[in-house]
């Protein structure tokens, strides 16, 4: 997987931003990362207008029932190889809405997720750092752990923790 990453996303990644029923906080921070103070474009990261042009999806929000099928379609329309970033606490695991009646809870329940950037909302620096980790520009600071082994209650560990690219 490393080699694919290195090969395909070496120069610049184009991202498509998807709001899957987020509150706007994360979305605004994503746009913020592209504006002068943070300037993601210096890493070659560019926001594009169509999923068909994108290398990576930035998904925010715990997926709602209405968005769910549309998000799947959207994921299919991104050409391979593709990366998915779940941005914000809601996208990472459902956040405060994890058990609401109209939400699916966590992007990884709907489409495979490669990287998680938690925070409510994550700072623009955090988003840039997450993408930089994905591109291999910087080292990762935390390691994935499986909650099941820690004896957490049923509800929590039922959530499938998607394999990160690094684990493979």
């Amino acid at each position: 997987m490393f080699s694919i990453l290195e090969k395909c996303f070496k120069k610049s990644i184009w991202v498509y931003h998807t709001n899957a029923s987020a509150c706007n906080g994360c979305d605004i921070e994503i746009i913020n990362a592209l504006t002068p103070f943070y300037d993601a474009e210096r890493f070659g990261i560019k926001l594009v207008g169509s999923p068909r042009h994108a290398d990576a999806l930035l998904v925010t929000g715990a997926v709602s029932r209405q968005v769910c099928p549309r998000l799947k379609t959207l994921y299919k329309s991104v050409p391979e190889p593709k990366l998915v970033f779940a941005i914000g606490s809601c996208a990472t695991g459902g956040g405060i809405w994890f058990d609401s009646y109209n939400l699916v809870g966590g992007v990884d329940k709907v489409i495979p997720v490669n990287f998680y950037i938690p925070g409510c909302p994550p700072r623009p620096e955090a988003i840039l750092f997450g993408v930089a980790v994905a591109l291999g520009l910087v080292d990762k600071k935390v390691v994935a752990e499986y909650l099941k082994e820690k004896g957490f209650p049923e509800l929590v560990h039922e959530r499938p923790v998607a394999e990160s690219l690094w684990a493979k």
Partner: protein
Amino acid sequence: MLTAKQIIETLRTRFDKQILGAEEKVSNQVFVRVVPDALIPVICFLNQCFSPRFLINAGTDVVQQDGKYVVSYIFSFDSEKIFLCIQVGLDSADPDIESITPIIAGANWSERETRDLVGISAKNHPDPRRLILADDWPEGVYPLRKDFPYDYRPPSEPQNKVPLKKPPEGTKVIPIGPFYPVLEEPAYFKLFVDGETIVDCDYRGFYSHRGIEKYGDSKLTYNQICFIAERICGICGFIHSTCYCEAVERAAGIEVPLRARYIRTIMLELERIHSHLLWLGIAAHIIGFDTLLMQSWRIREPVMWLCEKISGNRKTYGMNLIGGVRRDIPAEIHDEIVRVIEKIERETVEVIDAVVGDTSLHARLKNVGILKEAVARSICTVGPTVRGSGISIDSRVDHPYAAYKFVDFEVAVETGCDIWARTLVRLKETIEAVKIIKRCLLEMPDGPIMGEVMEEIPSGREAICCVEAPRGEAIHYVLTGQDNRPYRWRVRAPTYANLQCVPYIIKGERIADVPIIIGSLDPCYSCTERMAVVDVKTGQQKIYTKEEIIKR
């Protein structure tokens, strides 16, 4: 000037026995209980005599207490600073009520929402389709009824997909969305076009319905809701938490210390500054003026840093609690606040000078997306959208909250009715917000930031609060309940009212102008849908991105 007592008197004399009870429960908030048959006459009568502005309706399930569903229709008397709530009790066996949408067009979504979530259908509603719940949500399952657990996810019933309007004869259909690059959030518009001209449109939104109201009345406590209310919207979160807190404080009669009210005002205005600058950038981006996007976001960023310094977070401040605020604004950082906002003022004025004379902007924004005053009134639009059409509605003046009654400021009103007028209103408000903050910092008294809050907030009390968000007024209605949580908490975000005017303002416009027309309302779907790509698979329809639309 009309007083609350006079309203009660007038209604009692006119309708006599049909009024079951009338009371001024909170200062300047009148709650009138009427028999179901009298609803339409009462509303017609009010419209003729006083023409109050319709805000929302809220359905409440009180079947366990007295076997009824209650619908509350909330009106605002702007110049008199009075809220009027007409309540109707409906028998639980047959919870149907006559629709008021034929009289007040702005009640359209509100009634459909009550049908979707509480199961009270409006008879003779002109457009009784599903509004909020997902396409595969089963019929007859109403999430805001008390017997529905907040974490129950009913099985999928795909056949319930909401039918979209039939296109008028001789028109082509252009779907936009739900994922499209112009606006951040998902919403699906279906445009019916004749050549380049738009004839009509249909809207399917509510992709972001998250069930916040249900959380509020079944899972969380009074003080926890302050934090979830901030997450209704990532841009105007503090407005929602202030609005919720004030509604509970009014209902319970909690006195908030003056200093806390000033702190709330300062935070609200900081939020207004960053939201308006954000909007300016996004609007500029929509019409392809990316330099302005970069400039306005550069100007905006110091506000975020300032908010972080004050509250500890850039967006969700977590400052409000029932009875006051959690963090003080110490005297040491007053100078810094003044320095930052003065720099913003200076730079915003520079931007305004550059923008106001820009003829290419005039060409895109003037005489486009016209919202006539009469239409704005009938659909009950709010905020800069309506102030751009020459109507001076601003809840900071009409229904003062926080410390606004101690602060003088000018309400920006423009009469152009077009996108340009709405832009000017927002720019003026940004400058005005700087003045308000400076004034507040000067006048802020010393003292506690948290008031006395009783051990238990008494149940069965209700109150309404209106807060002017950057997009318009947010309205929260709270009915207090047992177990330290509200019995019913109803939220209406400003975009909820504003989006309903989209079909009116895009009629007759060209396709290329649609993104900026919708953008000019500063829509914020997550608020609207709170609680909250079609790839239309059939036929030749496809998703048109902004670029493709412009290319056409």
